[in-house]
């Protein structure tokens, strides 16, 4: 009598249903958006926090000291961390070549020598050092900037002994070499207050120790290897240095190193816990919402089965519905969460916050997991409902 066409497609039906029951769809989207938003927010926030913590901890100072193997560590500590034994300066390039788990390497050469300023003189600990050297695959902002040749930085106590005023230009003579005072450092409460800092090459020249250094200060980067191998940081470093040279040993400033690791791992573990809790919350909430939706639509499922929709075809309506809602929720949540986090990071962390940016990997992961959870959670009740006998469903809207 009349023409025949294909039956209606599930996208059309899902969109019409969503338009009709927009409130329940909105709740679904809000749940997905809230969870993905919080996760995206904390994901970017955690990255900014890690950068900021890294910057702060870096400014505390090095936590690893590499000394010549011949240094008697008892005497070294007795002298306040000082030794006249030296080692070859090319150890720095060896460490870089072997990609040791270190960063911000600062080679130093030091001697206790007479310093003269005008008519006053005093023994000072003169330290020649270079700018901090970053590992090639771990680029970082320099922890120590270079001191220009012919200039010098004075510790506060040594400056007082030599009568050098912070605001007045002055010169200091060391081993007949004249250095212009670049600045007088603020008191730090350590041996550095009685030290003078010059560039490494100048120190090697005036101490007549070419290509020699007293020690290398650095920051360890062993957290990933510790997690992967289960070994302690000191064991990893020891193994690495033993492989590179037998002319050096290392000291680890235990508390500083542990503090650095702890701060980072606490932040990471908190984020992981939050992440797990939120995924479980999302899974159960989506399951509950989908269950509610399928309960409300029992009669409709019965009608669809009565007019010839099979189990999988009925379930596909719910699957498409969950897909549409979860994609919408994830896109909204991840975008808002990341933008809010970037805004917060740039406001709170003045230096590192400027480097915060959208984390596409995190966005894809969070969006992807949310999508999968939502689809799975939405599918189970639909399959259960579609598996019921149509005769039991007709006239049974909840």
């Amino acid at each position: 009598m009349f023409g025949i066409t294909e039956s209606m497609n599930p996208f059309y039906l899902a969109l019409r249903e969503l338009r009709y029951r927009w409130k329940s769809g909105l709740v679904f989207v809000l749940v997905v958006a809230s969870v993905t938003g919080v996760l995206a927010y904390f994901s970017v926030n955690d990255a900014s926090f890690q950068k900021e913590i890294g910057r702060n901890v870096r400014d505390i100072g090095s936590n690893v000291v590499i000394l010549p193997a011949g240094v008697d560590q008892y005497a070294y500590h007795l002298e306040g961390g000082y030794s006249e034994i030296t080692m070859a300066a090319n150890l720095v390039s060896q460490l870089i070549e072997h990609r040791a788990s270190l960063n911000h390497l600062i080679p130093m050469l030091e001697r206790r020598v007479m310093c003269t300023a005008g008519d006053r003189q005093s023994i000072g600990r003169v330290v020649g050092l270079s700018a901090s050297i970053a590992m090639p695959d771990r680029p970082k902002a320099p922890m120590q900037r270079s001191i220009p040749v012919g200039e010098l930085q004075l510790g506060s106590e040594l400056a007082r002994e030599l009568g050098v005023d912070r605001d007045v230009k002055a010169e200091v003579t060391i081993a007949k070499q004249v250095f212009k005072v670049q600045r007088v450092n603020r008191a730090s409460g350590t041996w550095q207050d009685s030290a003078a800092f010059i560039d490494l090459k100048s120190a090697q020249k005036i101490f007549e120790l070419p290509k020699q250094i007293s020690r290398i200060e650095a920051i360890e980067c062993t957290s990933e290897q510790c997690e992967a191998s289960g070994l302690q940081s000191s064991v990893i470093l020891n193994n690495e240095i033993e492989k590179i040279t037998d002319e050096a040993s290392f000291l680890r400033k235990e508390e500083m190193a542990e503090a650095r690791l702890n701060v980072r791992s606490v932040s990471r573990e908190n984020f992981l816990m939050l992440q797990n809790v939120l995924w479980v919350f999302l899974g159960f909430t989506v399951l509950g919402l989908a269950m509610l939706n399928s309960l409300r639509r029992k009669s409709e499922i019965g009608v669809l089965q009565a007019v010839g929709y099979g189990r999988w075809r009925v379930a596909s309506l719910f699957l498409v519905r969950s897909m549409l809602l979860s994609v919408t929720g994830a896109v909204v949540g991840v975008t808002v969460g990341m933008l809010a986090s970037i805004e917060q990071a740039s406001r709170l962390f003045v230096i590192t916050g400027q480097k915060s940016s959208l984390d596409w990997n995190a966005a894809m992961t969070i969006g992807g997991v949310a999508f999968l959870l939502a689809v799975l959670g939405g599918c189970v009740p639909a399959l259960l409902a579609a598996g019921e006998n149509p005769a039991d469903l007709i006239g049974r809207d909840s």
Partner: protein
Amino acid sequence: MSNASPLLLVSDLGHRFSNRGQEVRVFEKCSFEMAPTQFVAVQGASGSGKTTLLLACGGMLAPSHGEIRFQGSNLFSLPSSRRAKMRAVSIGYLFQTLELVPYLDLTSNVKIATGVSDSVANQWLGRLGLGDRCRSYPRELSHGQRQRVALARAIAHQPALVIADEPTGNLDNRNSDLVFSVLREYAQDGGAVLMATHETSPATFADLVIDIENLDLMKAKAR
């Protein structure tokens, strides 16, 4: 009864279920056959098992015993996907409870039956006096109008068998006459109609009347 090969063959059908440990017999030993173009009425009071018999004949409720053959196939030996396909193509079901999909307009509600185009859906709606309401939603219609939409959905894909469960139960005379006339016309045009009714004189419009209560009474007497 027609001499054509049976479209629907019901043999020794019975259904029972358990309610709080008590076995309830709905009906027993129900046998009949339907040819294309036949109009069969199932008569009986409320709760006598008319809906159960119709659901079984539509492949939606497996009976406790007996056999239903539709177009030569034993319905309940087929996998559920085949039964669903058979319903999609060859059976139209008109429910007692006016089941329409609330979020679809009238055209789409009719189109939801497999293979029905917009124009076909609208022609049927027009024929049932709803030509000007095609874009309306079920909630905007009266009871009688919704019943007409459900009827359009049941017959728009021209199934071999239309199963109607008390389609005029809550309708006024005008709507009731319209539904009857369309179903009668459908049977005359080559489709079979199996209809449950509580009318007192179904013989006036049906080729065959199955009195489901008398079947039960006969069995009681036999015991």
